[in-house]
């Protein structure tokens, strides 16, 4: 839209857009801790929150005094107003018109109050014209403070006035504060939300503290009193005259210094053991087995978890990170029986990832077609081996799933055989996919209850109704079942074996990943077929889960994203190509790792991450309870 309209934009609008962008950038830089969805920053004067004598222009940044009515009426109305206040002397002294008394004063507030998370907030006002008498006030006020006044005169209102240079702190009488100001001067107002003080600047020079003990939620405010007075605000639209970032840097250093020098006195030992524990548990959590062991040795601490357990997790993580998700699933099932059965969501997520890795050509399911890595094939002779156990041992996970007795793999779409060319790459190979023996592989999704139930199971699954994904349910389920169940009986690998094999084959996998040309499934026809086959199974799994637990938008999205890869000739350079990035494996890996740990009654999060999360949350809380120092105690500034 914006691009299309750009041609017709006026120069002024372009400039405005530019200014808007600069404003956003500057505000982001100055107040990184502010969550604008929760507490928006002031960006202009409010056309609603102002007295009627005030006029706004230039995107509500310019304020001018327009007064009330004109000519004779003005005097009359004044007399009436004044008389009503029973201050008769004004009637006589007032004939000169506007500005002679405080009833002519008028203020405007900014659109939003200053968020505490700013830590230090700053805005500037340029005096475009001092008008007749230069009775201008710049400052702060709370919501609801009378606008027929200059800032500073009332409770919860604070101002610095140009005519006498006095500061007004919720009082009609000012205190000598700074120099006077007039046409051409730039006055800045800085609110320190850490110690709740405020100082002003004039033409870039700090004038010193004006107010202390400020209340929260103040709005930038200006007030004018005589005709011709015009001021422009700068809430960050332009660079400030005063070097506010330098001031902020001082406070940032101060607060970080307080944190760094936080006294721990005699509790030093206590702290040390806590820290060691944190480091150790973090290492263990992520499976850095050797590092954790030597750390424990150096610090003379003990590790909760068993060595083999850590190594197992490490191995599974390595597999996921190498993109060999199928093997990871297999290993998980073998080492932690029941885990994935209890976590169908996790399983689905892993399978989706596996599909993506197949597209990538990294999963062993497809790699076996394209690469000769006998070791990897040897050590995982039959990937299907695990599946039946899953199916057999675990038909129902939760009570909710009970009424659908079968983990139906509802690749229902099988029935609607419309083949549109949405996934051209697939349609061609769909027929052959069924014949692939390895298709049996992921039959775990397809429960004991045979293919019939699938066919019956209604398929209200329009979202994923890619006809190409259809499958002949019959021929993939059964064979596997038997096959695998036998497997399970015999085949428990020794951990050591797996590990050894794993290490070497992993190395291979990674190396090859780097150099193979980026072709779908490594460019191998059989692999592609296997992938498509797998896709169908995946869809089936999704439908099964839908039936058991109801619709799951996340799953749907995951599936859709994964399948979308096939719609492009070069999946790596397409709008959903980001999924193929190896970085994406990390979150999957972390989730799997957490699940394993949880199943072993170990914390699913390392205490270090928990502490980090708490600190982050604490800072957000501080912002809400208006403790400005949160702005300069950023967690990320302590993470190097």
């Amino acid at each position: 839209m914006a691009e299309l309209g750009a041609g017709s934009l006026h120069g002024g609008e372009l400039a405005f857009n530019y200014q808007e962008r600069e404003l956003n950038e500057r505000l982001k830089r100055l107040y990184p801790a502010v969550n604008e969805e929760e507490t928006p920053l002031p960006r202009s004067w409010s056309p609603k929150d102002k007295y009627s004598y005030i006029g706004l222009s230039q995107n509500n940044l310019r304020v001018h005094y327009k007064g009330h009515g004109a000519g004779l009426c003005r005097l009359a109305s004044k007399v009436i107003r004044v008389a009503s206040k029973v201050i008769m002397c004004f009637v006589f002294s007032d004939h000169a018109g506007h500005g002679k008394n405080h009833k002519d004063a008028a203020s405007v507030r900014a659109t939003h109050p200053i968020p505490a998370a700013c830590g230090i907030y700053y805005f500037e006002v340029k005096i475009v014209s001092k008008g007749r008498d230069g009775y201008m006030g710049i400052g702060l006020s709370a919501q609801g403070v009378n606008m027929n006044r200059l800032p500073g005169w009332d409770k919860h209102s604070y101002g610095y006035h140009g005519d006498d240079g006095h500061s007004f702190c919720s009082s009609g009488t000012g205190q000598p504060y700074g120099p006077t100001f007039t046409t051409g001067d730039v006055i800045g107002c800085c609110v320190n939300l850490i110690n709740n003080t405020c100082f002003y600047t004039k033409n870039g020079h700090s004038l010193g503290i004006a107010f202390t003990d400020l209340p929260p939620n103040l709005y930038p405010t200006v007030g004018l009193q005589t005709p011709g007075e015009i001021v422009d605000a700068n809430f960050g639209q332009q660079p400030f005259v005063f070097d506010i970032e330098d001031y902020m840097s001082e406070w940032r250093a101060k607060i970080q210094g307080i944190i760094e020098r936080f006294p721990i006195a005699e509790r030093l030992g206590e702290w040390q053991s806590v820290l060691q524990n944190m480091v150790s548990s973090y290492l263990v959590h992520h499976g850095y087995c050797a590092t954790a062991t030597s750390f424990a040795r150096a610090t003379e601490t003990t590790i909760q978890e068993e060595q083999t357990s850590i190594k197992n997790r490490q191995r599974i993580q390595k597999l996921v990170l190498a993109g060999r998700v199928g093997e990871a699933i297999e290993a998980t099932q073998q080492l932690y029986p029941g885990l994935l059965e209890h976590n169908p969501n996790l399983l689905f997520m892993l399978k989706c990832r596996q599909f993506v890795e197949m597209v990538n050509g990294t999963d062993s399911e497809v790699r076996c077609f394209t690469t000769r890595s006998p070791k990897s094939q040897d050590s995982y002779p039959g990937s299907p081996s695990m599946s039946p156990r899953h199916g057999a041992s675990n038909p129902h996970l939760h009570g909710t799933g009970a009424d659908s007795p079968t983990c139906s793999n509802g690749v229902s779409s099988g029935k609607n055989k419309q083949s549109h060319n949405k996934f051209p790459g697939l349609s061609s190979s769909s027929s052959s996919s069924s014949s692939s023996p390895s298709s049996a592989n992921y039959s775990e999704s397809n429960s004991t209850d045979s293919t019939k139930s699938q066919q019956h199971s209604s398929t209200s699954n329009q979202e994923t109704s890619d006809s190409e994904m259809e499958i002949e349910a019959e021929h993939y389920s059964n064979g596997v079942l038997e096959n695998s169940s036998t497997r399970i009986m015999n085949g428990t690998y020794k951990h050591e074996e797996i590990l050894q094999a794993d290490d070497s084959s992993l190395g291979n996998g990674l190396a090859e990943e780097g150099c193979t040309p980026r072709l779908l499934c490594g460019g191998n026809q059989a692999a592609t077929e296997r992938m498509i086959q797998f896709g169908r199974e995946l869809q089936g799994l999704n439908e099964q889960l839908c039936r058991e637990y109801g619709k799951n938008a996340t799953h749907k999205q995951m599936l859709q994203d994964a399948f979308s890869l096939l719609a492009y000739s070069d999946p790596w350079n397409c709008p959903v190509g980001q999924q193929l990035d190896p970085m994406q494996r990390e979150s999957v890996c972390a989730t799997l790792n957490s699940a394993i740990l949880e199943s072993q009654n170990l914390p699913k999060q390392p205490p270090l991450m928990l502490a980090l999360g708490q600190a982050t949350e604490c800072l957000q809380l501080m912002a809400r309870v208006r403790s400005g120092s949160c702005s300069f105690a950023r967690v990320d500034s302590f993470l190097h």
Partner: protein
Amino acid sequence: MACLLEAPLRISVLSEVTASSRHYVDRLFDPDPQKVLLGVIDMKNAVIGNNKQKANLIVLGAVPRLLYLLQQDSSGAELRTECAVVLGSLAMGTENNVKSLVDCHIIPALLQGLLSQDLKFIEACLRCLRTVFISTVTPVQLLYTDAAVIPHLMSLLSRSRRTQEYICQIFSHCCKTPDHQTILYNHGAIQNIAHLLISFSYKVQMQALKCFSVLAYENPQVSMTLVNVLVDGELLSQVFVRMMQRDKPIEMQLTAAKCLTYMCRAGAIRTDDNCIVLKTLPCLVRMCSKERLLEERVDGAETLAYLIEPDVELQRIASITDHLIAMLADYFKYPSSVSAITDIKRLDHDLKHAHELRQAAFKLYASLGANDEDIRKKIIETENMMDRIVSGLSESSIKVRLAAVRCLHSLSRSVQQLRTSFQDHAVWKPLMKLLQNAPEEVLVMASSTLCNLLLEFSPSKEPILESGAIDLLCSLTQSESPALRVNGIWALMNMAFQAEQKIKMDILRALSTEQLFRLLSDPDVNVLMKTLGLLRNLLSTRPHINQIMSSHGKQIMQAVTLILEGEHNIEVKEQTLCILANIADGTTAKDLIMINDDILQKIKYYMGHSNVKLQLAATFCISNLIWNEEDGSQERQDRLREMGFVDILHKLTQSADPSLCDRAKTAMQQYLA
């Protein structure tokens, strides 16, 4: 009594200590070099942080032996290094320790050691040298006696971070005079040290920065070079600006601000440059804040005073920045009543800095109020300001007295203040007292202030006179110092302005005509000008002219002739002609001119001079002589007409200068009437 009883005990303890110390010294003489090395290492461990042990070892003669071992190549690198370390440790002790070390010629020995190839040994020598040189008892000249030392130190700058740190520190402590600055400058100090400002080591950065601050101080040559230096593609001034960022350590901010201040004062950076106005000045104001350490506040205020001294715009900006004027009032609150109660250590600390704080505040007030009337008003309105100055004038510390009188001097430039607060607080009293007996620098400031207090509108004038100011000022005019002579005669000039007859006669009597004429031939032109000014003020209003001329006419005419004939600048001549004009206004005094052909010829000459001011003064003189209503005016008119003055006047009526033209016409009218 108690003391006596305890004494033997203390001696025995001491002898025990000495015995153990002797053991250390004895081991230095062991024939086995390996044992000597172990002995030195043990000694090193024994002296760390133990001043008593250090003193003992020095008394027992360890130093010459250590130096001997250090100088012998046969000692081996390790032993020599350990010796240097022990000597460095000894130097860390009291001032007396350092003195003994210097007396043992440690400096040449260590400098010799720097020629070694062994970096560790070099570093140990430099570290020891550094410790010796930063002591105030070490004569810095020792660094410069051998001309080869500085270039060698420059070459060692590239060896390691430690050599960089120590050498820069030595330079910054040993650069005390313009000569030292020039020596270091000529040996490429700037190029060699500049890149150290961006060193990874904070210590190296800081010492390099300190080096630049001492190099640039009052040195235009260094400063002009510094502004053009690039460090890693960045201008040096920008590097300094970065070092003043508010999250940098205070010491770094302050020292960087000093560098820029000195560069600015030396004329290398304009006073309206943003790096001065928006960075250096605010940084220095921040250094004056309560949050800073007392030392930093002193340093900050003094540097700021120096920065803004010559520039009214900087004074105005400083005066509105962060309530500086009120902030400075806090400088007078040490030791505070709180510190006295809370802890004795704090009180001691406060007391030590109290004088420094006060004098720094006075200096800064003096700079702030140097030019702007509004600022002076703000300063005087600060709580108890005048009382503080008054008590400052009689403080024991000369530094404080001097600063207080500087402040008073600055404020005394305000007519309004002279009439009000100065009077209310009788500042003249302590000032007069100060003048009786003070060092010259205080006298100069005080007498200069007195000049202002003696201005005609100042109500202090009377009491000052009564307290015997005339004699005091007359004695000042006999001073060796030109500044004091100027101030003395200046004050007398101000005193004589529109004064009554008695005062004028008193001045003349006290000064004596001999002294007056001596001053008229003073080599200092300012003295001459003020003396002429005094004469002119004495010779005003007709009765006074008559009286003075009747008693001193002859000498005055002689002096006037002398000056008009001499080689003097226009201002002097003009002043002299004005005196002549005043004389011409007197009744009897007129004759003194009329009978003096010489003078009349001179007047004639100056009426035709190319300088309008001189023409004007000369014409004024003639005009007075021919003024109609006076006795004998006819004769004078005739005589002057004979001498050709009318023709000249006629010519001058055609002058392009309107005032000269007017003056000539008025004179011509006297003839017409």
